[in-house]
């Protein structure tokens, strides 16, 4: 670090401004969520929390248009299921691509990389038709099943497995008569754990945030994800903004919690991915 350019006070000043702009909207969201409705129109904007959070939460959960509690539960189910599945399948495929030799491997790997560039969001119309045929409309499988694998996950695990899993260990396990599935479980999975954690965190956050596809396929207002509950609140005819902001604050809270606890790993994952990819 000693050879880096020194940071001048001006550097810190600029960073304080940048950090302030990053954090302020989130902070203000929580402030409004804890105050009464007129906090919204106050200028200059209030910056200290008020004492109304409990009442706002109570009104939010009583709101019969938003189905906010259902939304929270649904989003939890969807995000957790998708995260477990993405990490599981990515660690299987990533290991195979990094450490096993098979015909067509490079071509298949290039296909995986190509899928990362494909704007799959543009396929929502047939996907919707498919869900209609499967009778999954308005039900959670419609948002869970299409998200069970990602090319990004496979690629990330492949990159990590290449350097983290020792060839010698695999070879030794083979000599001892271990089949590939057991090698995966006993040798590969332990070595992949750090990358699996980062992939899991990123997947959880992306899934929790997803809006377009749930918006298209979950049309029953009584069975939303939490982002759709927010839409219902925001589009409502009469807007009680402190209640809306309570909703946005609660919907953001799990993400912030994950970020505060694992920020270092997430940053590491993003930066390493950028250099290695």
């Amino acid at each position: 670090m000693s050879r880096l350019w020194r940071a001048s006070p001006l550097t810190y000043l600029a960073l304080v401004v940048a950090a302030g702009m990053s954090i302020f909207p989130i902070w203000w969201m929580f402030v409004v969520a804890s105050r009464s409705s007129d906090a919204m129109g106050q200028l200059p904007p209030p910056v200290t929390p008020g004492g109304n959070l409990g009442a706002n939460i109570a009104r939010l959960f009583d709101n019969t248009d938003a189905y906010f509690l259902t939304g929270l539960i649904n989003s939890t189910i969807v995000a957790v299921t998708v995260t477990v599945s993405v990490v599981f399948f990515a660690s299987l495929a990533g290991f195979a691509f990094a450490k096993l030799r098979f015909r067509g491997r490079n071509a298949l790997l290039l296909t995986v990389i190509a899928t990362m560039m494909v704007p799959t969001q543009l396929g929502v119309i047939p996907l919707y038709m498919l869900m209609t045929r499967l009778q999954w409309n308005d039900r959670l499988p419609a948002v869970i099943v299409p998200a069970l694998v990602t090319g990004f996950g496979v690629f990330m695990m492949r990159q990590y497995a290449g350097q983290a899993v020792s060839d010698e260990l695999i070879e030794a396990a083979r000599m001892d008569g271990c089949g590939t599935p057991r090698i995966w479980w006993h040798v590969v999975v332990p070595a992949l754990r750090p990358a699996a954690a980062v992939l899991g965190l990123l997947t959880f956050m992306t899934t929790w945030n997803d809006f377009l596809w749930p918006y298209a396929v979950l049309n029953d207002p009584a069975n939303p994800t939490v982002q759709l509950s927010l839409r219902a609140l925001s589009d409502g005819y009469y807007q009680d903004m402190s209640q809306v902001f309570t909703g946005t604050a609660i919907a953001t809270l799990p993400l912030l919690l994950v970020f505060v606890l694992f920020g270092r790993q997430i940053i590491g994952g993003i930066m390493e991915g950028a250099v290695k990819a």
Partner: protein
Amino acid sequence: MTVQLDARPPVAPAAGGHRRSSGRLSRLDTRYSPYLFVAPFFLLFAVFGVYPLIYTFWVSLHDWDLLGTDHPFVGAANYTQLLADGDFWHAVVNTLGIFVISTVPQLLAALWLANLLNRGLRARTGWRMAVLVPNVTSTAAVAIVFGVIFGREFGMANWLLDMVGLDPIAWKSDRVASWVAISAMVDWRWTGYNALILLAAMQAIPRDLYESASIDGANRVRQFWSITVPLLKPTIIFCVIIATIGGLQLFTEPRLFHSGTNPIRGGSLRESQTVTMYMFENAFAPHYNFGYGSAVAWLLFALIALVAAVNVLVLRRLGGSGMGPGKGADR
């Protein structure tokens, strides 16, 4: 941005290395297990990723809606209708406008921020977290919050303008102003993320390049533009491509920026309706015109490919330094 295929030879099945007793089973295992391991990804992606995208094209050649029992083949009729559709082109202009207004300042700011973060800082992780935190918030929540910040009467943006003596701006009903407001949202979310990616690439630049440059008398600004930026070019191209793919499909931010009646139009006069919103408006409620919506999707796909290609070509030509394109920061 290189993917090294076969960087290190993977473990060979080692034909002779197995015990005799488990011979056949083990041969089956080494031969077929790899396919078993990668199969779930390819199966699921084929069904829920590739098939819908291709089938979109098939649907776009038909007069196909939700309720109709038959859907006759109409050839390119949806496309010809679309190319003459003023609302579609309006949405294309909106999308490109928002894309340009958001991406250019975003990447410049990210470059500058990365340069700040690439110094001997106290509380390094803290600063990085602070600039990344917008990226992990809920998009829908942020869109709603920014919708209030850019409100006409009591919005913070107009209040700030008023403080410096400017007239308030109708952020939601003026076309270009709404692009700026939505771009602000996008930039707020993505600048820090891009800064971290650029920072990672900056840290990989060897220090002695700067040392010899300063011996040659190049000042810091000069060093930044003639060493840092050219060596970051592959990473910058990566950021631009990601921004293109994401930015041209923009949906959640403009959709939730507007509320009230028919917000899928992006304002009463479609001030900030993006192409994805236009696809959505046609393909789902209220019209459920799958054929027409699919044609929108495919033209958007073509637009993304075109813009990405143009961006890459332009960036490759820009700033030709001593380094060949794509060489420097490959690692």
